């Protein structure tokens, strides 16, 4: 326990506490002082607040690492510059392309993209539905004086009304059943790859690669179980279905900051990396002294020299230049030349 306090990252702890408190405050505001809060969802709320704390803590620790900090600062600097409109537009485009549709995965493998897109879309839409419901931001009321018109309220304000039993009500009340299907299909596609691909078999781990997929299927199946119960079993197994679903979802929420699911939040850094590349090439490219060809932005090379020094590496050469001034091909060539010279100096090229 003492070790926990000794290794506690104070900055991250403060930021995580603020984030968790902000969620609690937003729950109070959005649910009109808990008036619209659904008490049945209290365990989900606790799980979500813990997840927010954990994610904010890990994100903050992660941002303190020299390379991450540099990318974060540079991304913000480039985004909020005179080219704000260009970069904001580019970021929105990339948000759709890379985060919501994960198109970059298609270049790794088409099947893999389908698998990931299905499970990610299912998860993201489910988050968009369950989080506002859990926080009490969305709730439904019967239109006064009627018995078949439902009102959807957001933060206590009426935003829509629809007929019970109509297409909108089916879509609204069964949305999570619809989203659970792509999650299950996507997770099965990803599992199939992990059974068949020799490379994945050699490098995968139980907790890092298999359990997240198992958990996503468990959440989806137990969620479908709730619907099955009230549609076909007249609610006789409701308690069992509700408890098993709650357990799987809360496990997912608690695990989110620690395991593979944290990449959902890390992935946003890809937008920053793209802006960095665009702005860097505008500022000028570095030319390799060996190949005489452009290979990266000069900004990137200069930043890397700073970051590597911060991390304890010093590639500065005797003449004041730097090994990092060379392109990858240039580095390989100077190494080969040095090896040749060493062999030559020994008087034997082979042996």
């Amino acid at each position, binding site marked *: 326990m003492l070790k926990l306090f000794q290794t506690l990252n104070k900055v991250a702890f403060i930021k995580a506490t603020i984030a968790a408190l902000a969620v609690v405050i937003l729950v109070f505001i959005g649910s009109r002082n808990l008036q619209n809060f659904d008490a049945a969802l209290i365990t989900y709320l606790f799980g979500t607040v813990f997840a927010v704390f954990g994610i904010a803590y890990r994100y903050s620790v992660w941002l303190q690492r020299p390379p991450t900090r540099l990318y974060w600062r540079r991304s913000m600097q480039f985004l909020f510059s005179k080219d704000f409109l260009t970069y904001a537009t580019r970021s929105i485009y990339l948000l759709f392309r890379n985060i919501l549709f994960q198109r*970059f995965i298609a270049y790794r493998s088409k099947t893999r993209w389908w698998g990931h897109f299905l499970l990610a879309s299912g998860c993201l839409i489910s988050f968009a539905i369950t989080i506002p419901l859990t926080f009490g931001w969305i709730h439904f009321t019967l239109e006064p004086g009627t018995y078949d018109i439902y009102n959807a309220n957001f933060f206590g304000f009426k935003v829509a009304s629809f007929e019970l039993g109509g297409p909108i009500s089916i879509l609204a009340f069964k949305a999570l059943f619809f989203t659970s299907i792509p999650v299950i299909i996507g997770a099965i596609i990803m599992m199939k790859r992990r059974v068949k691909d020799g490379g994945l078999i050699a490098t995968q781990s139980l907790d890092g690669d298999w359990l997240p997929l198992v958990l996503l299927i468990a959440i989806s199946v137990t969620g479908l179980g709730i619907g099955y119960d009230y549609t076909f079993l007249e609610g006789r197994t409701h308690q069992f279905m509700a408890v098993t679903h709650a357990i799987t979802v809360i496990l997912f929420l608690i695990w989110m900051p620690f395991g593979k699911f944290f990449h959902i939040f890390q992935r946003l850094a*890809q937008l920053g990396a793209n802006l960095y590349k665009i702005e860097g090439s505008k500022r000028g490219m570095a030319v390799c002294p060996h190949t005489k060809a452009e290979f990266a932005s000069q900004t990137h090379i200069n930043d890397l020299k700073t970051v590597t020094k911060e991390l304890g590496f010093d590639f500065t050469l005797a003449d004041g230049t730097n090994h990092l001034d060379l392109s990858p091909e240039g580095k390989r060539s100077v190494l080969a030349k040095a090896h*040749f010279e060493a062999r030559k100096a020994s008087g034997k090229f082979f042996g």
Partner: protein
Amino acid sequence: MTVTKYDQQMGFFIDMQRCIGCHACEMACAECETNGQESMIHIHYVERAVSTQTTVQVCMHCEDPACANVCPADAISKDEFGVVHTAETSRCIGCSNCVLACPFGVPQKQEKAELMMKCNMCYDRTSAGKKPMCATVCPSGALFFGTREEIELKRPDSVPVDTFIFGNQEVKTKVKIMMPKGSNYLKVH
């Protein structure tokens, strides 16, 4: 999960002076399943205009890998056998930090996939006690995977070296380079 049978007695020894530029390693590398059938080995002329010298470069699997240190996404890791793995696909953001910071010029960026990939010593094979693909096909002995005793017997006038000097920086690696007898390091700059 599969049981790892990585043989710690086996080592990777490279001698780029023996490289004849035949590209056999490149073809063999593409057979490695952990690369997704992409060839990760580097083979090219050193200075085409003035020399026919070619060089071959695999990942040297540094003791303190610069690539992993500069990765902003914590995507690169070193395992208990000292193998530095290619970027974890779920984390890699394709920033190219590792590509530009590696002192040996090893990682490659797959531009469209926004992913870094590199040699991971044919982990699908070495973790099962087999040799990496490139070392099994190299006809000139530029790439050798075996025990230290075996390589010492084959190259009596050479010694395996794991230390490289790049200016002020000393880098120690798991993969060793064959140097003239009596050498303790290779000074690149």
